[in-house]
């Protein structure tokens, strides 16, 4: 065991003078070896100096090396070796980790971009409606804030109220800071004949004060429903007071601050699940001009 360690040590110390004294080295080395007989006993390989030169097992050592090994120096290189190994492993590991992370990030980004598709968005687009306070509301009002849009009608017997309770649950969390409301909640009626701004205002106040009701003419509602891929079946010629229910698709649409569609939240989500999903999107979203920055500016 001892012998082996020493041999290794000698071998490795040998590299240092080899590099340092390369030009002189070949001349000297030959003369050294011719003077000193080969020794294989462990005692001889301890690195003791004879006439300022160590004995060494010739067969294990690079020819001519070790001429400048000092006494006791066979302990130091072992440490140096471990140290450099450690540095190599840590350094290599660090670089590997960095590249792995970068690779994964770019993969996620690629998937996100793929999902965005090419050309015009499939969901959303220009629209013009009237809000429950009588003001005009267009797609421009979606800009600079996240919006969550729900399509329904106030006479809805069970589904819409349940969904609006879920929306209220989400808003209680996202909009709890009055100075930093993170979501603009919109309720678009599919029943413009009965859902006037006044009805919407009275109805929605029961759920959450932030929800803004939107209505319009039958054509305007039909237009936005088409753009948001909402199916609904209000008969176009119903008179107010006539009894009917509206059949419609049940989705929340999450829109980003550039007015672009992010995701839908369906009927299968509970309040906490919907909140979780909304939060995920709020955290993950980046403006589209930041996407074009060079990769190294997006790392940190």
């Amino acid at each position: 065991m001892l012998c082996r360690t020493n041999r290794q040590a000698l071998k490795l110390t040998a590299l240092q003078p080899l590099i340092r004294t390369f030009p002189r080295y070949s001349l000297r080395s030959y003369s050294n070896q011719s003077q000193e007989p080969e020794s294989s006993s462990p005692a001889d390989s301890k690195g003791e100096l004879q006439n300022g030169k160590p004995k060494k097992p010739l067969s294990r050592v690079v020819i001519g090396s070790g001429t400048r090994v000092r006494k006791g120096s066979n302990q130091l290189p072992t440490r140096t070796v471990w140290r450099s190994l450690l540095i190599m492993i840590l350094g290599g590991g660090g670089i590997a980790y960095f590249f792995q992370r970068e690779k994964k990030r770019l993969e996620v980004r690629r998937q996100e971009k793929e999902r965005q598709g090419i050309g015009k968005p499939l969901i959303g687009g220009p629209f013009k409606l009237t809000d429950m306070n009588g003001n005009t509301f267009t797609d421009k009002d979606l800009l600079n804030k996240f919006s969550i849009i729900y399509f329904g009608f106030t006479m809805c017997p069970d589904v819409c109220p349940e969904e609006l309770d879920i929306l209220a649950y989400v808003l209680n969390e996202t909009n709890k800071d009055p100075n930093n409301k993170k979501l603009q909640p919109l309720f678009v009626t599919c029943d413009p004949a009965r859902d006037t701004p006044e009805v919407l205002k009275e109805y929605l106040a029961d759920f959450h004060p932030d929800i803004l009701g939107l209505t319009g003419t039958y054509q305007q509602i039909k237009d936005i429903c088409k753009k948001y891929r909402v199916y609904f079946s209000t008969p176009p010629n119903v008179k107010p007071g006539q009894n009917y229910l509206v059949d419609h698709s049940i989705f929340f649409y999450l829109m980003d601050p550039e007015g672009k569609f992010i995701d839908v939240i369906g009927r299968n989500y509970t309040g906490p699940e919907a909140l979780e999903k909304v939060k995920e999107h709020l955290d993950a979203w980046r403006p589209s001009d930041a996407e074009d920055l060079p990769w190294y500016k997006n790392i940190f």
Partner: protein
Amino acid sequence: MWPFDSAPPKVIHTNERQKCWEARDGFFQCLDKNRIVSGTDPRAKSACGESQSKFNDNCIKMWVDYFLQKRIADVQKAARIQQLEQAGYKPLDSPITVEEVPDNRQ
């Protein structure tokens, strides 16, 4: 004030809706107990007369009709699902397990 005062309700508020839903649940529980599917079944009146009238009083006609229809559809749906599951079908949103197919190409 309201231009269409003849129209029954303009807005149904949360408390009214809650009352309606409670009345509906009470009536439907009674129907379940008596193994009656349709709320318009003549037996419903004799078995659950009290809860039925409560249901009719607390919900607008439009909703009563809707809930009765929905109950029939729900019962039929549940029966059909049970039938399919007994036949070995699995719901689409259940995690799909793929059995390993032995590779015979070699």
